[in-house]
């Protein structure tokens, strides 16, 4: 008889997603220990927490990343692992990985100074989209309509204190319909998809887009699977736009919220699927 698997849930806020994960574990009689990120200590070289695997659900990219590194170094397995989280949680690293894998993605230029960003914007053409490399929920993403606006926005950006606010991710504006698509991949399997509709050009559910189920065609499933693989695999939410030349993947999220997605389907219990994946990954 092998010992029962012990899982940890590394989190910041108990959102419905985290509550569902805890409930799914308790329904299956699996130990899933809540580990609040704000209170954790990671002694370097010290003993790791007594769990086999930690599921990262922290809302902070940086907290999650360092915690994962510390845990992995102590021999604890992780979902998603630090490498995948680092890549997918940073739009620059993510775009590099998508491009290397030959996945269609919007044309993007990285610039390291305000002047270079202006040249990148001119090169991409207007309207263009400017995003912080790390961030989510559509925050601090700007659509830049012309050069005058570009100069204003850049001046404002470089006045912000954070160093990553002065690294510029400049992207072509994709003239998509008033919606985009989100596909959740768990392991190597696309398990659910949704359409996010909004009259606003940013269609994040967090910004009030309405959501409905998206039946996954073979083409979309394959695209989502390839995008998840390009990040290194795990629990990943693939964001897709419908461009004039077909689907483009604009980002892949490493610690996805799935409340809105779960609301569109009764076919799949997302928390339970994530838990199954974590259990499998925890097997020696």
């Amino acid at each position: 008889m092998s010992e029962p698997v012990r899982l940890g849930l590394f989190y910041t806020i108990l959102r419905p997603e985290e509550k569902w994960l805890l409930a799914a574990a308790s329904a299956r009689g699996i130990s899933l220990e809540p580990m609040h990120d704000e209170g954790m200590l990671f002694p370097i070289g010290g003993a790791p927490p007594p769990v086999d695997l930690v599921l990262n659900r922290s809302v902070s990219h940086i907290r999650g990343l360092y915690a994962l590194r510390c845990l992995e170094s102590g021999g604890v397995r992780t979902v998603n692992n630090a490498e995948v989280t680092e890549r997918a949680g940073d739009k620059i690293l993510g775009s590099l990985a998508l491009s290397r894998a030959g996945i269609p993605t919007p044309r993007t230029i990285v610039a390291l100074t305000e002047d270079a960003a202006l040249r990148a914007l001119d090169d991409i053409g207007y309207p263009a989209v400017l995003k912080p490399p790390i961030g989510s929920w559509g925050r601090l993403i700007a659509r830049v309509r012309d050069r005058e606006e570009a100069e204003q926005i850049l001046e404002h950006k470089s006045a912000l204190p954070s160093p990553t606010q002065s690294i510029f991710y400049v992207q072509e504006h994709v003239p998509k319909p008033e919606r985009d698509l989100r596909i959740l991949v768990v392991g190597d399997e696309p398990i659910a998809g949704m359409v996010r509709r909004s009259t606003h050009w940013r269609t994040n559910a967090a910004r009030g887009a309405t959501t409905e189920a998206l039946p996954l065609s073979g083409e979309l499933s394959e695209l989502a699977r390839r995008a998840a693989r390009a990040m290194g695999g795990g629990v990943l939410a693939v964001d897709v736009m419908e461009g004039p030349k077909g689907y483009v993947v604009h980002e892949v999220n490493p610690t996805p919220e799935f409340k809105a997605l779960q609301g569109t389907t009764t076919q799949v219990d997302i928390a339970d699927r994530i838990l199954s994946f974590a259990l499998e990954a925890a097997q020696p």
Partner: protein
Amino acid sequence: MTNCPECDAQVDCGAMIAGEIFPCRDCGTELEVLATAPITVERAPKEAEDWGE
């Protein structure tokens, strides 16, 4: 039991664990359970720049 840092009303976070977010029933402020022994609540955190999904 503890008190709302905004309006001082009593708030009951019976079975909650750290990180739970709930509105104060008196003033509606979003509160977060910081710790359970002893129970401490604070205004729910504002999103930090690297927060996301």
